[in-house]
């Protein structure tokens, strides 16, 4: 497959999965409305504002909380290694035609990097000191190209919104199940024939949070492949990133630094399960990413 085809396919996949996610949110709201005997419009009038408010709140706190969780600090241009990192970020931003993001450094011997920021003009790219010291010029370029693609594709926005939708679905399901539990006994008799459908609706409400979490993870893995392909398009050198991922694979720490909240943002999940292929992974397995990069 050509690089452009990789990029297009990944984009279409993401759109489809996002649509599924929105459909899931709406179905949950309808199912809850149904379980309580509320008309759909009434359920929407209550459910949608809760969903939107939750998404807006998560969205507005996303950047500062990530920087704090990672314990990152701004890169110091007086230090040659960090100056060269700032240079690399500037170069890749020109290749992508984006404003240059702010550069942060996380003191850690693990090789890793992440990007955050809701819009390209307030974006941040952060690399670990381990990445700066252990990756060569081309490998670092590949990693920065990958992060720059996350910014260009607005993945941080996609991730923030999908995480918020997952949270909303969990919240709505929790509220619904608790109130059903407390008012459950008296309801069944009134409805009579609707009993089985109500049970189906309740089962759906129980399972929806799990579905939504799996959907979010599928989106996250798609976006990683997309950023790999797009990053390779920016550097015109897939081997740089492939070789960096290989170094990361051989250097997975036993005791990763940084909190689990930042883990999905990193270029590779710092926990050992980065090697396994599972529907619960935030990232595709490293071997598969390397294989795809080398086949480009």
């Amino acid at each position, binding site marked *: 497959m050509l690089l452009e085809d990789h990029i297009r396919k990944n984009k279409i996949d993401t759109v489809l999965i996002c649509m599924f996610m929105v459909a899931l949110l709406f179905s949950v709201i309808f199912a809850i409305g149904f379980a309580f005997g509320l008309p759909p419009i009434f359920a929407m009038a209550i459910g949608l504002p809760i969903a939107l408010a939750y998404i807006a709140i998560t969205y507005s706190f996303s950047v500062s909380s990530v920087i704090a969780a990672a314990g990152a600090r701004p890169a110091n241009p007086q230090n*040659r290694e960090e*100056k*060269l990192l700032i*240079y690399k970020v*500037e*170069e*890749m931003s*020109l*290749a*992508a*035609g984006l404003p240059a993001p702010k550069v942060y450094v996380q003191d850690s011997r693990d090789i890793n990097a992440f990007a955050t920021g809701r819009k390209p003009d307030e974006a941040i790219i952060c690399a670990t000191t381990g990445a700066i010291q252990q990756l060569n*010029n081309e490998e670092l370029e590949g990693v920065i190209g990958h992060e720059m693609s996350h910014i260009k594709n607005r993945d941080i926005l996609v991730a923030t919104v999908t995480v918020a939708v997952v949270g909303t679905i969990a919240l709505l399901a929790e509220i619904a199940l608790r109130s059903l539990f407390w008012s459950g006994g008296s309801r069944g008799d009134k409805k009579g024939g609707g009993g089985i459908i109500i049970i189906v609706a309740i089962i759906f409400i129980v399972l929806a949070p799990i579905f939504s979490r799996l959907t979010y993870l599928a989106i996250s893995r798609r976006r990683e492949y997309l950023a790999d392909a797009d990053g390779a398009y*920016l550097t*015109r050198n897939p081997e740089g990133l492939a070789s960096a991922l290989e170094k990361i694979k051989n250097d997975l720490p036993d005791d990763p630094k940084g909190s689990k909240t930042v883990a999905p943002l990193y270029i590779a999940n710092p926990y050992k399960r980065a090697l396994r292929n599972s529907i619960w992974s935030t990232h595709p397995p490293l071997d598969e990413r390397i294989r795809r990069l080398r086949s480009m």
Partner: protein
Amino acid sequence: MDLIWWILIIIALVFVGILLWFFSFYNRIVRSENRIDNAWGQIDVQLKRRADLIPNLMETVKGYMNHERGTLEAVTKARASIMSAKTPQESMDANNMLTGALKTLFAVAESYPDLKASQNFLSLQDELTHTEEKIAYSRQHFNDSVLVFNNTIETFPGVVFAKRMGKKERQMLQIPEASREVPKVAF
């Protein structure tokens, strides 16, 4: 009576839809052409920055490399041709010349340990390499933008409107293959 109203509403909606689509398509052509000019602006800024660094570099190496007159002159000459270039392609050619001349200069510098140890020289070398890379990537973005624009105006429906809007195919910046590898020399 009711039916006629419905048909009129649908026709009006279709018409508004076509109009909106046309506006957005028109804007897309204008935007993608502006992006090309903006990308050229980025290259131009980097070329100037690079040319500005050369006198500093000359000042730094002068004391050490007096015997390498030919190497130094080649750099100065290339810098002068960047300053006097008129078209984008001329600028890029002059830039290639400068890249080649600097490559020689940095290679020669290898045999001057005092110079190589100089903090000033090292940071100038880093920065020249950096502007070199910036020019290469800006050029790549320029060519990507040209490709998008040319594709838009040469495929349907662009091919119908582009001529009427006075839009013509744009030229990419040509560059010899070898120059892409230059930055590695500095490390």
